[in-house]
């Protein structure tokens, strides 16, 4: 090959390699193309696991001009990030389901205390607000909802104890608390309702003896229900109602008592004052009528299926009314400290 041809070849190869660099240049620019901060406004870093978070951050940014950086992840990786970076945190607010995680962060001094938004709580909201106001509830789902196929199950169980009856042997499925964030509050709620950890352990051991099947998260548990592997699924209410919207043969029932699982926002105690002020504005916006509209429309078959915590906001029509349903709250500060040990027990004694 002559020198010119060789150089041409090399040019071609260099061009091919350059495609990659250009691509990254493109995506780097896209990563920095979030609307520039206006004078006096710092970017608000939002860590969120909510299905409607992107719609909400866009609406908030549009309404206030405050630039938002969204880290949209599952709850587990978000908490791992916060714990691993707690010496030098760079998040502004955290928005996930479950009060026990917030209680754990609060006990480590990672949350700003004392912020109270100017709203009127309904009964669910009042039951979910912590005494030190270290986090703010934004909605409530229930743990666990009983989901079943009404064409196959004519007489579903009416109490938690009836799940132990032989007719449900090998027919019940639930999630693994080490993979499904909302499941620990359910286990803790059952233990609280039954009188303590030992009684709760006894109950779940009996349930295992009756053939309880554990799946990782809501999705696989519901899939096991629709495929016929199980007849009763114990999942988060929003997941169960979402499944009902996709398959009219399914229905949701609440057994007494059912545990409240608030979705909540906590503000980073070490964030700069300007970012903390913006985080408070974000919470106010979320709980405002405009914000509630975004929450209810941002993920219509998923996280939008929540029970509101502020007055004058009605739940979506798909949600079963809570009239006559007995709900309970667990003390997240008491049960949060037990989460690791109970999850470990559940993993070694029930899952295995």
């Amino acid at each position, binding site marked *: 090959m002559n020198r010119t041809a*060789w150089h041409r*070849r*090399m040019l071609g*190869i260099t061009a091919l390699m350059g495609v*990659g*660099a250009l*691509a*990254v*240049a*493109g*995506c*780097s620019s*896209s*990563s920095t193309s979030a609307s520039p901060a206006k004078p006096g406004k710092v970017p608000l870093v939002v860590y969120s696991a909510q*299905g409607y978070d992107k719609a909400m951050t866009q609406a908030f940014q549009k309404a206030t001009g405050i630039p938002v*950086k969204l*880290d*949209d*992840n*599952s709850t587990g*990786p978000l*908490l*791992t*990030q916060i*714990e*691993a*970076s*707690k*010496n*030098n945190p*760079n998040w502004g607010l955290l928005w996930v389901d479950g009060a*026990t995680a917030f209680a*754990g962060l609060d006990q*480590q001094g990672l949350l700003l205390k004392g912020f109270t938004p100017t709203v009127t709580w309904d009964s669910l909201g009042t039951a979910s607000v912590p005494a030190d106001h270290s986090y703010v509830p934004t909605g409530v789902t229930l743990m666990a909802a009983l989901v079943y196929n009404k064409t196959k199950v004519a007489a579903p169980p009416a109490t938690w104890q009836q799940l132990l009856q032989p007719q449900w042997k090998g027919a019940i499925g639930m999630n693994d608390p*080490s*993979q499904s964030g909302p499941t620990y509050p359910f286990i803790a709620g059952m233990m609280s309702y039954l009188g303590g950890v030992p009684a709760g352990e006894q109950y779940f051991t009996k349930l295992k003896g009756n053939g309880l099947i554990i*799946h*990782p*998260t809501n*999705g696989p548990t*519901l*899939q096991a*229900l*629709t*495929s*016929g*592997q199980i007849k009763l699924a114990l999942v988060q209410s929003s*997941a169960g109602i979402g*499944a009902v919207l*996709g*398959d009219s043969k399914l229905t949701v029932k609440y057994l007494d008592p059912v545990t409240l699982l608030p979705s909540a926002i906590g503000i980073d105690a070490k964030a700069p004052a300007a970012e903390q002020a913006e985080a408070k504005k974000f919470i106010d916006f979320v709980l405002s009528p405009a914000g509630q509209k975004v929450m209810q429309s941002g*993920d219509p*078959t*998923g*996280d939008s299926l929540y029970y509101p915590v502020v007055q004058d906001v009605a739940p979506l029509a798909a949600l079963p009314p809570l009239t006559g349903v007995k709900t309970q709250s667990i003390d997240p500060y008491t049960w949060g400290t037990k*989460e*690791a040990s109970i*999850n470990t027990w559940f*993993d*070694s004694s029930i899952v295995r």
Partner: protein
Amino acid sequence: MTFPATAPAPVNPRAGRGAGGWQAATRGLPAPRHLARTLFWLLLVLFILAPSACFLLLAVSPRLFAEGPQWFTLTYLRQTFTGTTAVAVVNSLWVSTAAAALGLVIGFPIAWLAARTTLPGRRLVAGGMWLVLLLPSWLPALGWQRLVQADGVMYRVGLDLPWVTHAIMGPFGVVLLLGLRCVPFTFLAITAALSGLGQEFEDAARVHGASRTAALRLILPIIAPAIWSALAIGFAESVSDFGVAATLAYNSNFSLATYQLYADIGNFPPSFPGAAAMGWLLVGAVAIPLALQARTLRGRSYAVLSGRSRQIARRRLTPGGAVAAVAGVWLFYLVALGVPGFGAVSGSLLGDYGGSFSLTLVNYHALLRSSDLLGPIERSLGYGAVTATVTVIGGFIAARLLTQRASRATRALDFMLLAAVALPSVVFGAGYIFAYNLPIMSTLGIDLYQTVMLLVIAYTASSLPTNARVLVGVVSQLQPSLKDAARTHGAGELTAWVRAVLPVVSRPIVMAYLLTFCGVFLELPLSQLLYAPNSPPLSVAIEDNLSNYHFGVGMAQSVLAVAIALAAVALVLGGYRLVAPAGWRRIGETTRG
């Protein structure tokens, strides 16, 4: 671009035996080369050793990173030798050993058939391997589960085979899936080695009356570095795999070490020291294949690749042999691709959590209507391209270092690279946060955490060990005379490398590039922990759908992602065919014999 030094005269691999240490590795080098090698080591220390060490230190000194009260403790290490944790570690060790062996047993014949025989459809074999490699390991696991689980597809179509369910949903199934995952690594390593192995060795054996079996016995020791590389990578990849551990193994109540480690981190509050202790064991485990590899290869030279390597004549298969070979290869692809493909595609075509067999495109419609569809795809394509470009350069340098004189420095490099493969990505990701988000970094104005730059660095650091392992086979075959000849004819250092060495290694380099690209394109754990807010990569977007009740949309997105990655692979391979000179492509090619 600079490369590690080669002595003017061909390197005698025995020359460095017993010589030790860093000084030996750099002694006598001209200043620019010395500087380049120092810089390379510095980068390895900063981006592989430091994050790994930061995380592993937590096991014995949690207080260093405010994760506990103890400055020094062995409690967490002791815990890994008790109870369910110990069971998980033992399971991981034997399963990974079996999987690496299975990968070799399946991958070697396929590589040989594709490279050295007239196997019908052999051009499709390599493409199929890329597809196997491209699939995240959880996808085949879910596909198999969907098929064999109670009330699964197998039972619905009338196949009442509970023994199949018991076999797949247990240790056998775990070994099978991990072993299938090892096959592409074996294929790549062996294919690269066979490409560099000219026809002259087989001819010499046959001329001297050797049977085909005897000729094979001659060839196997020559490509021993590639075989050992394949086993070492297979073991390390299996021991660090999380996709199978969290799906099939988990649902079979068969606990593996990576799942236990994940449980330690996933619990709230997370036990980073407990996870780090498990990380120590995983790192320690890779010493096993490394020790075996070192013991076997010590003191031998494998330099057979030169500009005079003869084109290979393909062996013509008999009609019966061809049928058997095609059937075997197709069986492999059916098991490795057909089942997971069925799982993913069927999952994306069902609108009701997979409860019925009614097919619908509703998930694809929802996906295409989404305003967030293109951004994550573009980002992951870009991240993959840049990471792969940087990684092949670093991987080649590392492979070159690994194949040079044995010294303490090269042995340390060898261990560090393989140990990094054994560390699960979630450990690597957490290690990056601990190392690069220290308060002192912010004080110095270095805020790398949650930037695109740190994410790409982490992708590169996590890809480089595997990449170097894949390249070490072909690099070990390079004869120093190639470059020496160019230098003798007046070429400068860079020109000599580009004109004499690059042509013979261009194909393996392209393969290594694609290996990294595919790995990064759907990488999840690092992406989840390190991505820059507002810029989610594709894997995070898919996980977002799967975890937010949009299972079908997530599966549709997975199918689309695999299709896009395949198109990118085809583009690169097509580009190589169009752009690379005919002589480059001829190296390692075959003639029909």
